[in-house]
């Protein structure tokens, strides 16, 4: 009974994917236009795209920029958010700045950034960096602010100084919240990666997608959408697995017992 249920719960994402592809296939057959290839056609094009060394290098370029932008953003945003959460002065200094940047779509900054840094890696990585930073800062800030004062006092009584309390109490206590921000950041990194490449067309997954669009290679367009979508799903699932390992202590306890058994 529970075994069957576990198999169903493991299979359900695949079933959902299959369902979606089936709907696509039927819709494409019914509409029968050139700009909407069937799911089968699009899927068959995926290995062709990935098999082409130039296209593959383009996609790997995108992933590299995304990884660098994401890592830099996380490395800077976590300490900044934590400092803002624990110090009213730091928060008062950075808050107005962040409030101004927050509602601006980061891709809208792309033209200015391109003007300064050119159309190469630097601009695209910077836009990804900006896209990832804000949710991570926000969640690190909220997480740090919610840390119980008494927990910090307990640490102080054990002899931890201010910096040690920050690294060894505030950081782990805020980690569940921080990782929620990172997960949002990861998806935003993928989005800004594609948009930056469609604005500064030079290389990358977004570039392939829009070049194919211009040349009416609709099979390739849909194949790229599948590839980017799959990349997003895999990254998100992998990140969630990592998050689960890091903060299982914060999850409801029956899940921990399940994990241990």
């Amino acid at each position, binding site marked *: 009974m529970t075994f069957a249920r576990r198999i169903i719960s493991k299979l359900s994402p695949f079933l959902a994917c299959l369902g979606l592809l089936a709907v696509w296939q039927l819709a494409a057959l019914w509409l029968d236009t050139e700009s909407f290839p069937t799911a089968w056609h699009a899927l068959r094009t995926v290995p062709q795209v990935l098999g082409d060394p130039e296209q593959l290098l383009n996609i790997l370029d995108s992933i590299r920029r995304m990884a660098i932008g994401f890592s830099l953003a996380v490395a800077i945003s976590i300490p900044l958010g934590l400092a803002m959460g624990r110090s009213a002065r730091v928060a008062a200094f950075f808050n107005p700045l962040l409030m101004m940047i927050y509602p601006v779509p980061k891709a809208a900054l792309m033209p200015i950034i391109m003007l300064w840094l050119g159309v190469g890696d630097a601009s695209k990585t910077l836009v990804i960096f900006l896209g990832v930073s804000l949710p991570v800062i926000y969640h690190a800030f909220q997480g740090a602010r919610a840390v*119980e004062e*008494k927990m910090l*006092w307990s640490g102080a009584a*054990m002899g931890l100084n201010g910096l040690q309390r920050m690294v060894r109490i505030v950081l782990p206590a805020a980690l569940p919240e921080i990782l929620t921000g990172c997960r949002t950041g990861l998806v935003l990194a993928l989005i800004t990666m594609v948009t930056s490449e469609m604005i500064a067309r030079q290389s990358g997954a977004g570039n392939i997608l829009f070049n194919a669009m211009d040349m009416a290679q609709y099979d390739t367009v849909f194949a790229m959408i599948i590839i980017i979508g799959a990349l997003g799903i895999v990254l998100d699932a992998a990140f969630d697995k990592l998050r689960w390992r890091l*903060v299982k202590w*914060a*999850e409801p306890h029956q899940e*921990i017992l399940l994990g241990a058994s």
Partner: protein
Amino acid sequence: MQVPLRPETDTGSGVTSAHHRARAMIEIDRVSKRFETSGRKSHLALSDIALTIDDGAFVSILGPSGCGKSTLLYIVGGFVAPSEGIARMKGAAITGPGPDRGPVFQEFALFPWKTVLGNVMYGLRQQGVKRGEAETQSLRLIEMVGLKGFEHFYPKELSGGMKQRVAIARTLAYRPSVLLMDEPFGALDAHTRTRLQNDLLNIWERDRKTVLFVTHSVEEAVFLSDKVVVMTRAPGRIKEIVSIDLPRPRVRAELLLDSRYQKYVVDIERMIDDGRDDAEHS
């Protein structure tokens, strides 16, 4: 060297004064605490508190909520600075928290990302004790507070009473000279509360650490303490200090039938009621 005539007002040299007050562990010397609130108003939480706590004594601070009793404990802990006056530990002015004063809070304040063992070991590891040695000592403490078998559980998986046992073990682990207990059993149900009171007394009987214990329960204060400091509400002042002259080790079932215990409880309850009348009439 000249011996000071009135060592209790000597704020200077710790060595000579410590010698003269060999039995005084904590001295609270005319401490007041004023909290700045919105605008120009401020709230006087503590007014002119003077209290000496002897080495090895179990002293409770008892009072209605809002009388500043927790604030007084935080001042001794070094978590909060007094507005006036000074608190001293073994003759030296308290300027901040330190491992010689171990707090136990009503909210437990455990580290949720650490297991029971990890929490109890934390202070020892911080003080440079090797992992193996810290683990051995911590396991012994966990057994002493009755949590053998739960070493690898996370706080989230424990009941309130168990969490507080962990918190007590975590604080005892780094061997503070003074335990500062801030309504430690206030969040627990009556049954758990009684059991923890008994266990705390048993643990205390072994090494007779100095304990400063904040509570609003008269029975709890009388049952546990050598001295009960009764406070009045806003601003918090000491109304009376009652010495509890009951034999130890104390057994709850016997004490409840003991007329001396009953008299202490009734007397102290009356004092608190008087205090409330004062506040209401003024």
